[in-house]
Structure formats: C-alpha cells, structure tokens
C-alpha cells in the first residue's frame, strides 16, 4: 500500500466516498457538488463514480436541499446535504429547526441526515463566508453537532455522522482543509470516531483549555508557549462534538487542573463557552481555583479587511494572554 499522507479535506472526501460505496442509501446533494466537484473540491470525482442520481447538482436552493434531504431520510435514505459555505445554512434554517429536529420527537420517524459545509474564518471570507454557526444549532434540541479538528477525526466523525439515525450538523473548518501540518496517515481499515467523545490533545496539570475545530491548533500552540515561557502546563481538551457533549471528559479534566480556559471562534455572548461555563459552575464549583475564562470572537459580525479579521479571531497570542491571567490565580 502506498503511504500518502491525507489532508483534512481528503479525509472528508474519503469518508463520503467510502460510505457511498458501503451503503446505497447514502447520497450527496448540493450546489455545484457534481460536475464542478464542489466549491472546495471535496466531492471531486464522486459524480464520475456514482452518477448524477447519487451526486445531485441542485439549484441555488438551500431550503430545497435540506428539505429534500429530510424527505429522502423519511423514506430511509441517508442523504448528505452540502452547504456550499456554511453561512448559507440560514436559507434552510426552518428545515432544520422546525422540520428535521422535531420529526422523530413528534412522530417516531428518524431523520438520518448530515448537513455539512465549510465553516469558520481566517480566509478573508468577510461577513458572509466565515460563519461559525454552531451557536444557533447548539440551542436547538434534536440535532447533533460535530466539529473535527484533525484529518483522522474529519473522516471518522463524518462516517459516524452518516451512520447516525438523527440530523447531524458537520462543521468542517475551511482553514484546515489543506493545512500541510494536518496531513496524516489514516488507517487502511474502516473506522469511526463516535459522536460525543472528546479527546485530550495535550496533557497538563495547571489548567484545561476547552476548545474545538480550528482553535484546537491555536490552543496547542499557546500551550507550547506557556510551557516554555511560563512553566505552565495546559491541558488541551478537543471536544470534537458539541452535541452530544462529553461532559464526563470535561469534568474529569477540570477536576484535575482546577482552572478552565474556554476558547472558540464563534462570538462570545450566548455562545458554546457560556454553556460550558454554566456546566462547570454548576457541577464543579468547589473545584475551581480561578475564574472560568473565555476567549472568543467579539460580539460583532465577521469583518473582511485583514487587520480587522486578525483582531477579530482568537489566536495563540490572545490565548496565551488570557491563560497568563488565569494562571496567576
């Protein structure tokens, strides 16, 4: 077997291809996913292998894409609905929050769909091509949310999402798509990364960084700086999934480190970090030796110009600064 290190994007592509080979109920629909192979080429080559009935180029109609996925799922299919940029998920919002997520709960009929698309910033995408939409759906009961940070997880979480019997929002971070550092050898054999299992990316004694997606890598970089310059050992816990949330791993880590820094790219107020902070305050109040601290984007829309984008996004430097304040307690 030839050894070829796989990018995050290729890992996503492999997951789709392998699941479509494994199960004839799996199909892909979205804008420009067929002939063009997708705006980022995630689906390149799939049309040739599976034909236009299983790789469907749709009109520019997110409600029709997601709604059709729901209808097909009612029939027992396992559609993957691609949002060309995850920002455009707003155009199909109702199909998710009112149709897909409430169907099993109110009728007993499962809706096994994956809605996936490129999310996140750092690519000069501006206010309409940089969204981190997880907060909207984190607050919506009935949908699972996967947020992979590595090529291994990108493939394994997507396979788990496709095999899950519920709506899953799968947020692939577009900055990670072709990042050379993320290339890795993936197992030859079939594997999944189960939804709802966090992973410790770096062990540490002094504080826990709770994070996910692209921010995992910023946290790891910050942790290296803290080790070298401050003799602070930060543990980095990659949540991998926001729903189901791996409360047990969060609690285990924080019980051990007694300090928490929450890092996400989505805006601060009412974000994932707010819920994590509430969980920690409720469950681990007596274990905390410092204030639960959050590093997140400011509460404004995502800006375009490079200096503004840089100022907007959390990064290793901002994480180090916040961690130093926290470490001082």
């Amino acid at each position: 077997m030839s050894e070829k290190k796989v990018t995050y994007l290729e890992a996503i592509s492999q997951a789709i291809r392998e699941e479509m080979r494994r199960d004839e109920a799996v199909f892909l629909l979205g804008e420009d996913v067929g002939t063009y192979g997708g705006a980022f080429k995630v689906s390149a080559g799939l049309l040739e292998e599976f034909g236009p009935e299983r790789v469907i180029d749709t009109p520019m109609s997110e409600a029709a894409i997601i709604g059709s996925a729901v209808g097909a799922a009612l029939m027992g299919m396992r559609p993957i609905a691609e949002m060309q940029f995850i920002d455009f998920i707003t155009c199909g919002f109702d199909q998710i929050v009112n149709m897909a997520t409430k169907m099993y709960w109110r009728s007993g009929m499962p809706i096994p769909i994956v809605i996936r698309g490129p999310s996140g910033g750092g690519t000069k995408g501006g206010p309409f091509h940089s969204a981190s939409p997880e907060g909207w759906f984190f607050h919506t009961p009935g949908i699972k949310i996967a947020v992979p940070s590595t090529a291994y997880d990108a493939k394994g979480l997507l396979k788990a999402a496709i095999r899950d019997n519920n709506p899953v929002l799968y947020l692939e971070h577009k900055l990670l798509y072709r990042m050379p550092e993320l290339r890795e050898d993936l197992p030859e054999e079939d594997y999944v990364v189960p939804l709802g299992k966090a992973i410790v990316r770096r062990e540490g004694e002094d504080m826990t960084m709770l994070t996910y997606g692209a921010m995992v890598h910023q946290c790891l970089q910050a942790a290296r700086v803290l080790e070298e310059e401050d003799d602070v050992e930060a543990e980095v816990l990659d949540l991998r999934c926001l729903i189901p949330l791996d409360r047990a791993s969060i609690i285990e880590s924080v019980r051990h480190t007694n300090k928490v820094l929450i890092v996400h790219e989505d805006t601060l107020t009412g974000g994932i970090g707010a819920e994590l902070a509430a969980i920690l305050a409720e469950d681990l109040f007596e274990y905390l030796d410092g204030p639960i601290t959050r590093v997140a984007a400011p509460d404004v829309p995502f800006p375009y110009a490079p200096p503004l984008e840089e100022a907007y996004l959390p990064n290793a430097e901002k994480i180090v600064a916040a961690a130093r304040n926290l470490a001082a307690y």
Partner: protein
Amino acid sequence: MSGKYRVKADLLQIYYFMRLTRAMEDRTRTLFLQGRVVGGVYTAQGHEATTVGAAMTLRDGDCIVPQHRDLGMHLVRGTAPRAVMCQWLARGNSPSLGRDGQLHIGDIHHGIVPAISMLGESLPVACGIALTMKMRRRSTIVLAACGDGATSTGPFHEAMNFASVQKLPLVLVIENNGYAYSTPNAQEFALTNLSERAAAYGIPGESVDGNDVLAVIDAVGRAVEHARSGKGPAIVECKTFRVRGHSEADKADYVPPALREEWLAKDPINRFEAYLTREGILTPERKAEIETRVKGVVDDAVRFAEQSPPPDRETVADYLFAPDGPIAIVGEPGANNPRYVNALDTRTGQPFSTVSKAEEAVGRR
C-alpha cells in the same frame, strides 16, 4: 365526470369520506367549545371536495404531504379517526404522544407525512420523497397540498423549481380558499389563477372548481397520471372557500357576508349529494346508512380518545434522538421487519398507530 368513477360504490365512498370529514370537524369544534381541545382548532368546512377528491386519485404506495386543513386526505389514505381525536385531545397515545397537536400526524410506511405550522415548508420534503421514488425506480407519486397563503413562500418556489428540474413525480394541489388568515387573494398575489405559477416552472397547471368533487378528481387524476408517467410535476389549483375562520378563535368578520353566503350556497357536500340523488345513486336508505356509519365512527373515535390517558409528565424530556440501528428503505420488501429502527415507533416499541388497520381505510386502493 371521469369514467373510472362512474362505479356506484366509488361515488358513495367519496360521499362517505366527505361526510366523515365534515362530521369529524364538527365534533372537534364542539370539543373545542367545551374546552376539551386546549389548543387551536383549524378546520376546513368547504374544502371536502378538494381534500377527499384529490386523495381518491391515489394508489397504494403513493404518498401524501398534507397541510393543516387536509383531514379529508388523511381519512381517505387511512389515518385512523381514533388517532385524529387522540391528537386533538392531547392524549398520551396520540401519534405524537402529546408532543404536537392538530393534524400534524403521519406514518411514512403508509405514505403520510406529518405537517408543520410553517406552511410551504412541507413542499421541499415532498421533493425528497419523490426524489427517492425516482431513484428507486418506483411508479408511485407524491401528492402534496398547500394553501393560497403558502404559495407566497420561498420554499414553495424552491420546491417546485427543484421538482421541475429533476422531473420528480410530484403533484401539488393548491387549495385556494380565498384568504391567508385575514389577507384576501388580492393582497397575496397578482395572478387570476394560481395554476399560472406552473408556467414559471415549465410544468402543467390547471385550475378547477374545488367544490365539485368530480371535477377535482378529473383534474388531479390527470396531474397524477402525468407525474406517474415520468413527465414530472404538475400543479392543480382547486378554487374553494374557507367558510369559517382561520381557526375557531377567528370570527372572520373581515369576510363580506354576501361572499360567505355565496360560497355556503356552493357547499361541496350538498352539491354532490344533489347529484347523487338526481342520478338515483343515493337513496334515502343509503343516506341514512351512511349517516349512521359516520356517526358511529366519530362517536367511537371520541370515546376512545376520551378514555385514553394523558401523557406521562415524567416523559417530558424523552424521545429527542432516534436510537442506533439499521434503517429500511420504506416500501421495499422486509421494510417492516422490527429490526429496522424506522419499522416501529421506537419511542414506544410499538408499531405506528396512525393508520387504521380496520375498515376506515377503505379509501386506500
């Protein structure tokens, strides 16, 4: 009048379903006035020719995607009157287990999709079902319904456009009842006929007298044949009138009394009854028989619902996610094997109960 519906028994069956629909709604209204239906009640007096007629054109394996006023479609396609009453009365054994009200019920194994209150949003879902039928090389079709109001929504356009591009086996019945809540047609759209919207999608569109059940059957039957033959979707506008309010909480005093009177005089059940009587098909004896049968079914449904327990408070946080396991492709051999997560209602471990196995489902063919 269509040749295939000249058979006396079929015509009387149509009449039975129209009467049953009206009687179920009349009883629901009484229950509401007695305070026994706690939520909103949406009925469709005047729509019976459209809802019953449209559904009578279908075959086994076809699917309906009804909206909130389509009790007639439900009953013809086999939704059990008991299930309907349990849903109105928020019983613990209602199809939604008390999670939802109204006619928001369905069972995909019997080709019935539960509606939601965001009107128009069911149409993209109808596309997905039709898309699956096309992918699986079936000769079945989807009959979706919406009101005049929903034709103004984005999902209406997205769905009809996608369906026409993909040539999906989809028939859309637009029930134009004159008003979207209090907003009259003139403030909803600038067309004479809503079927003209079909031109925008390059598909057939037809408008028909929605209070003439045989005309509805003819027009929808043609559209169904078109869709079934692989030629793609079609639209039929059934022009009718909502002679009551949007809901039972709405007095509808915005409707000019003369206009309401005009439509009351065109009541679809009275018209069909006059026709059947004139043709010698409906005798006083048959009529009495049907009335007795209708009353029996409605009484049984209400009694059953009233004797059913309310939902258990302890279950309030349950049923959010479906369990793991294999999923069957609906309508294919073995799909009802209980090993499939979608074969049973896994919330209860029981078969889906929305559709009656008994004689009420005689409209299925």
